[in-house]
């Protein structure tokens, strides 16, 4: 890949196709220009490549050089001729509803959950999780499988050498439903079997000839081990062979690309994993869109992704209202909110999704909704990103005292080094401080954590690039994609209001921040300092209760935020007191209230 000088990458989203042009300038890869055009998977075009060409045409015009030939095809350089064309063309896609899957397992909290993790990690939207013990009657499950029409089913269960009977039952259930895939008439539904290897033949007997069956290694070969790789690869392969071939224009697009088309969330997951690996850190990333919120994390080297399919800022905004409730949304507003006014306003946003807040009050309400959407999606993520359930571990007396258990979440906010926010409400917040503040409230990071936003949402394109040219992907990610907002210093614990919760010394200046307060310390992008952080009382900044920590902190578009509001963050229950506190915090961050 040493000769790659120019790369075009597109992301075909459900509404917009985004193209970026990356070029090698001296010794480093940089983003040159970006273009976009409406996605064209629906009538009258019914061909995704029309949108791709239009987006590439914009890139061509902005870059001032030829990328498309007379037929409108992307020119791939065969020799070292420079001036026109690109060396690599890559693409991701989530158009046409993305990849929709049903997963099945024997035990809900074990194999079905592992199957869910495998499918989510491969970029799917899970439309149902079926398990022998999920509490529904067989006919109800059969009806659900039939009604939902997934793109494919992942069937798992049983450790190798374990149950066979339950797996045959699951296979029989799939046959009973006789499901038809969402796309393509007369096409057999792809089913991936990733369960007990001893049940393969029996399952094959039931399913073969009736569905398009693929058999891969068991995704939970023993209770204490997950092996999600083979199932994820099979999902990706079937996504390319089946779903992509049925979607309009994709068979054409797949001939243009230099490497397989990747589903958008799968690509974002790849770049997050690359970042975590290269920087040797724990990372959390969220992409909040109009309809869904995706959460990605790498903790202790384990990658997880979840998608909250109905938590978003426009189409799904009323589902945030339904799940969070009006009280939880209004608690973040630094003024009184009338419940009826809030409900009608969110409904009107749902039916006219492209409108934007004009007044400061309206903006604050929308950002309050975003906090709840991010929080709920994160809660969902925590429940799935966890250690394996059902594993017998040798526990010491100390473990028992700490009440640790199998199946606990892997999300450890204290070890988390970076949170990356993406999606319109975060990336395009009128002020960067607002993006930092929303993430601070929704995630409540602990210890020292860097907050960042994705400047123009190019993580999907960089994700697919990282699979063929990790160096170029990492350089563009660091220099052009990521906007660092600054480090957050947040001690954990509780104290009396007004007592000094944390003392942070930077450049010889001490910032003594009382409990219940926020302080913003100016520090610009790229500037780093060694800070001495001394928590007050029994507060913990990561070195233990009351213990001092010396940590490297970094500035950014916002600066360094010292958050001494306590963890968990408790807002005053009394309305006027809560509003007063919120106004104080807004002022500390230099934000207007309304």
């Amino acid at each position, binding site marked *: 890949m040493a000769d790659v000088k120019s790369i075009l990458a597109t992301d075909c989203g459900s509404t917009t196709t985004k193209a970026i042009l990356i070029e090698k300038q001296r010794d480093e890869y940089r983003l040159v220009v970006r273009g976009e055009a409406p996605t064209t998977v629906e009538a009258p075009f019914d061909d995704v490549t029309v949108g791709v060409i239009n987006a590439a045409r914009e890139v061509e015009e902005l870059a001032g050089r030829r990328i498309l030939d007379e037929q409108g095809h992307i020119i791939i350089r065969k020799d070292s001729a420079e001036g026109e064309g690109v060396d690599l063309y890559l693409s991701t896609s989530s158009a046409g509803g993305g990849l929709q899957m049903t997963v099945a397992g024997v035990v809900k909290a074990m194999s079905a959950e592992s199957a869910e993790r495998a499918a989510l990690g491969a970029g799917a939207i899970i439309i149902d999780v079926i398990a022998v013990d999920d509490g529904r009657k067989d006919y109800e499950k059969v009806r659900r499988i039939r009604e939902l029409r997934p793109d494919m089913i992942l069937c798992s269960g049983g450790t190798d050498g374990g149950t066979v009977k339950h797996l*045959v*039952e699951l296979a*029989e259930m799939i046959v*009973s439903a006789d499901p038809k895939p969402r796309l393509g008439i007369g096409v057999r539904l792809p089913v991936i079997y990733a369960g007990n290897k001893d049940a393969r033949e029996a399952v094959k007997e*039931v399913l073969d000839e009736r569905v398009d069956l693929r058999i891969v290694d068991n995704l939970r070969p023993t209770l204490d081990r997950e092996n999600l790789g083979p199932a994820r690869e099979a999902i990706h392969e079937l996504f390319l062979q089946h779903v992509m071939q049925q979607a309009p224009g994709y068979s054409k697009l797949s001939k243009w690309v230099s490497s397989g088309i990747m589903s958008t969330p799968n690509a974002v997951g790849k770049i997050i994993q690359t970042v975590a690996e290269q920087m040797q850190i724990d990372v959390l990333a969220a992409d909040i869109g109009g309809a869904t919120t995706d959460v990605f994390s790498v903790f202790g080297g384990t990658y997880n992704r979840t998608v909250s399919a109905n938590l978003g800022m426009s189409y799904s905004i*009323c589902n945030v209202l339904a799940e969070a409730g009006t009280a939880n949304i209004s608690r973040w507003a630094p003024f009184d909110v009338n419940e*009826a006014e809030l409900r009608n306003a969110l409904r009107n946003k*749902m039916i*006219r999704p492209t409108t934007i807040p004009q007044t400061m009050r309206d*903006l604050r309400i929308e950002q309050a909704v975003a906090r709840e959407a991010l929080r709920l999606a994160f809660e969902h993520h925590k429940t799935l990103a966890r250690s394996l359930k059902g594993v017998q571990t040798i526990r010491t007396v100390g473990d028992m005292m700490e009440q640790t258990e199998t199946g606990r979440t892997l999300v450890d906010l204290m070890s988390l080094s970076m949170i990356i926010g993406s999606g319109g409400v975060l990336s395009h917040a009128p002020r960067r401080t607002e993006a930092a503040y929303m993430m601070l409230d929704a995630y409540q990071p602990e210890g020292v954590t860097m907050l960042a936003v994705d400047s123009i949402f190019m993580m999907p394109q960089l994700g697919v690039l990282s699979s063929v040219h990790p160096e170029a992907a990492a350089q563009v990610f660091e220099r052009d994609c990521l906007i660092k907002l600054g480090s957050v210093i947040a001690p954990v614990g509780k104290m009396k209001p007004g007592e000094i919760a944390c003392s942070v010394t930077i450049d010889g200046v001490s910032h003594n921040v009382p409990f219940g307060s926020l302080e913003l310390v100016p520090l610009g992008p790229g500037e780093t300092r060694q800070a001495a952080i001394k928590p007050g009382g029994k507060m913990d900044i990561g070195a233990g209760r009351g213990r001092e920590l010396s940590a490297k902190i970094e500035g950014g578009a916002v600066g360094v935020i010292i958050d001494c509001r306590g963890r968990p963050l408790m807002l005053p229950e009394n309305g006027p007191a809560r509003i007063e506190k919120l106004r104080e915090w807004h002022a500390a961050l230099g934000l207007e209230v309304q």
Partner: protein
Amino acid sequence: MGTAYTPGLKVSPGTVIRKQRRLPLKGKVLVGVGDRVAADTVVARTDIPGIIQTVKVAEILGLEPHEAVAALQVKEGEEVAAGQILAETRSFFGLLRSECKTPFTGTVELISHATGHVGIRLPSKPVEVSAYINGTVAEVMEDEGVVVETYGALVQGIFGVGGERMGKLAMGVDSPEAVLTDDCIKDEHAEAVVIGGAGVTLAALRKAAGIGVRGVVVGAIVDTDLVAYLGHDIGVAITGHEDIPTTLILTEGFGSLAMAARTFALLKSLEGRDVSINGATQIRAGVIRPEIIAPLDVRPDELKEWTQGQVLDVGTHIRVIREPHFGRLGEVTKLPPEPVRIESGAVVRVLEAKLADGQTVIVPRANVEIIEG
């Protein structure tokens, strides 16, 4: 010029309307091209295969799977009736008898040697598709359905709940600003589609549902009243399958919003006519909006054809669709080309408009919709 939010809603006194009527599975089409159909004419029919119900024979008889299969008295493909013996075992020289009967009527489709289960496919259920609108069959999709075509008035709403209904159109109020209250709902509105103005009260909706009103069309509704009427909250904007007796269609939005004067006038001109309505709404890729269709015998000449303007220009009539001037009507007076910083701090493209009360305001272009001039 510039772009504004246009939901693409059609409000037309006369247009050609084509409706695809498709079966969920392949079946039989009952009409031919050129046939005249009424809204309730069945145009296609099919049988949806029943689901398979499992009888756990091995477990019921306390046998190993292979023993259960050996004890079966039925074969795959055989029809069975509820109460029929599926398997029988005898022990102690035939003195003790155990039997397993099927609780279901259907066809034996699956005999599992691995589990000792018998799968019985329940009888299929007939499914019919009606024409939905009075019109003519324009196209037949072999084994799948038809396209019915009519000439008529078409009003698309912005949001609705409830499915397809037919009835005669009746006016419940006499102005687009009036709220449809329970006093406005009369006994003679049974089986009708009732038109209101700026809103509808919960009591009116409940009364309408109680006397069998087929549909209610109004400008807006207060969100909590909608939730109370449905009995549940709406999370995602995909509707049409609610189990409610009266379909509800909103032409403007939530809160209290007068119905657009021309929409109201058009609906009023259709009083007494047969209309077909559907509340189904989907606000995502492949947008579906609720609709009111009134097939007409002849093209009316008292109303001229309206087309919804898509281009924003000085003089264009607009409605503001977000606070702080939500619901207000006005006329574009300036279209500054450069993005402007608005109160929220965002830098966006805006327009200047003169509202109906004479006030001049600046509004983001994304926050207006174009209305017919």
